[in-house]
């Protein structure tokens, strides 16, 4: 009985959407993320080409420490999971729980940035030392910029979800869903970056 009402309701909503404008914002965002991913792809291609055709002087080669970036990877992967929980909580109309998960996700993002900062300060090379160092900072910095923007987005979503009359409710999940898709994208990029920059 319940399921029947639900289907009825959803089909009517669909009709309604068609009459105004169907909501294609997630599709648009996904297309934008493809474009954004291509920027990273360009950077990765440049980095790999440098590695292949521009051998550095032996004394300019540094081994990257692995523990901190591994911790960073774990932080981001966990944050993806917590964000997912936040979305689930919102869909179940549990606003308080959703806010808690959002705050945890944002803290994980901030922890990632802090840890990245620590790594920057301890690295034995600077931005202009050699082309390898420059590409390293360009890639991690560009990704860090994405994490910063994502964290700000999460905090905005959290802020908007605090009041039941706010913009983020179980009836309007788009802001949260959009931020979540973006966050997963940024995490995915990090995994690729981690493999290419640190493991290869």
């Amino acid at each position, binding site marked *: 009985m319940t399921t029947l009402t639900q289907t009825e309701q959803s089909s009517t909503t669909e009709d309604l959407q068609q009459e105004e404008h169907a909501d294609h914002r997630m599709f648009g965002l996904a297309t934008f993320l493809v*474009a954004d991913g*291509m920027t990273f792809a360009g950077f990765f291609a440049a980095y790999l*080409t440098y590695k292949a055709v521009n051998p550095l002087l032996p004394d300019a080669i540094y081994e990257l420490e692995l523990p901190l970036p591994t911790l960073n990877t774990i932080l981001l992967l966990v944050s993806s999971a917590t964000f997912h929980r936040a979305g689930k909580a919102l869909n179940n109309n549990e606003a308080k729980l959703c806010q808690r998960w959002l705050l945890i996700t944002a803290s994980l993002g901030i922890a990632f940035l802090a840890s990245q900062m620590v790594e920057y300060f301890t690295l034995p090379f600077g931005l*202009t030392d050699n*082309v390898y160092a*420059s590409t390293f900072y360009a890639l991690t910095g560009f990704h860090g910029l994405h994490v910063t923007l994502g964290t700000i987005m999460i905090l905005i979503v959290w802020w908007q979800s605090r009041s039941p009359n706010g913009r983020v409710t179980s009836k309007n999940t788009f802001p949260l869903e959009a931020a979540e898709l973006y966050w997963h994208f940024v995490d995915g990029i990090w995994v690729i970056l981690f493999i290419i920059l640190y493991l290869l």
Partner: protein
Amino acid sequence: MTISIPPDKKESIEGLQPKGWFRYFSFSLDHKVIGLQYLVCGFIFYLIGGALASAIRIELTSPISDFMARDIYNQILTLHGTIMIFLWIVPVVNGAFGNYLIPFYVGARDMAFPRLNAIAFWLIPPAGLLLISSYFINGAAQSGWTAYPPLSITSPAAGQLIWILSVLLLGGSSIFGGINFIATILKLRRPGLKLMQLPMYCWAMLGTSILVVLSTPVLAGTLILLSFDIIAHTGFFNPALGGNAVIYQHLFWFYSHPAVYIMVLPAFGLVSEILPVHSRKPLFGYTTMVYSIMAIVLLGFVVWAHHMFTSGTPPWMRLFFTIATSFIAVPTGIKFFNWVATLWGGRISLNSAVLFSCGFIVNFVLGGITGVALAQVPFDIHVHDTYFVVAHFHYIVYGGSVFVIFSSIYHWYPKFTGRMLNESLGKFHFALTFIGFNLCFAPQHWLGLNGMPRRVAEYDPQFTFINQISSIGALIMALSTLPFLWNVFHSAFKGTIAGDNPWLALTPEWLTSSPPPVENWEGPAPLVTKPYGYGKSTASINKATTSSKEVEGS
């Protein structure tokens, strides 16, 4: 279960839209207004870029740099290239006609993201002003539209950085537009309209938008790295600091070769709309046309290094890119023969729109043949960086895209304004443009084959006579703008009233009033499943365009 229907949206939307002439200067969300904003803004930049081109041709009438200093020549040349590509052709073939026509073609009332659409347009005027202002601040960039390092790193930094900023803004605008077109074509089609029933311009724009979304971000990233090289003295592209200038070329051409298709694929689409209407025949080979567009999109991504045959490219790469580039001639040739077959045996009305389209076909074949020649390594090495390349490129983008833009203006002006353009002036405009264009650029093939390098203010005196012929051609091209401008301004007020469908066309933008109302059709959107159903009796045409099924509240 009852659901309360929200109050009539139409009223609130109309309340948001400014009325009268002022809307063309406002942040309007109407796709038709945005399309015309793109068109007029682009044309103003065309006039500026054209003035710069005239300055270049005046300088080149004599073998010494007497009209302007050498570094000024470099700045003028860079501004000319950048303005014509990023502010005129790309915004107009994509933004202007795409915004105006695509919602009609898919049976929608607006683009998928109207606000993003307006943002995409309003990035363009500031970017253009920024670019032009750099000339007056500290001298514009001098490294050409390609901005190759180390030239771009060693030339004065201020102009180059403003150039980078401007191109980044324009790239952002282009990406936003591309996202919007993909979403509109794939998601906003009215119910009952299949992909393979869409007018060809939709396919061209879909392919172009895929190219835009996948390749423009790479250029953006590259330019950011280049700006690091200039500001922070990193060494990405600076061999003196261990970098690699060839990597810049690879990344740059990964965008800029597809950029050629971004400029010319929409033009293919527009021609495919114009020719069937005026020859009263269906578009020949619709399906092959669709596949050849997609083949060009696919191949467009794997041919970039044919711009770099002299950049120390290894032999295997030369071989691969020669073969891949030659392959592009196949889908392009299919399209060419399809247009000819569309015209073949048709009842052609030889008006300005058709003349410009035919001019396009002729010029494009010539540009295409030199393109295939340039793809061959031995020949390319001989003519690389000579006027042969300049001639080839202008045959593609001027003889190709710009001819189609003019053709499209003659074709859609009645829809834009409700009035017809003057035909005699239009034919005069065509004659001047066609003669001027060929007189200007055809001799440059000869100059290039004989070794005159491009992008230099001075040249060997033996080339003087041919350069003067070319400059006379440029003068005729510049003059050809005058009858056009007069025609456009005069006809906007005094032209004969066009009526809704002066060409008796079948595509959906003609099945409404001219100019169309804000919501595109007063009633429901018509379902046009055979946009090229010409050459049959009127009754069957009416059948093909029945507006049986309503979009709203079925």
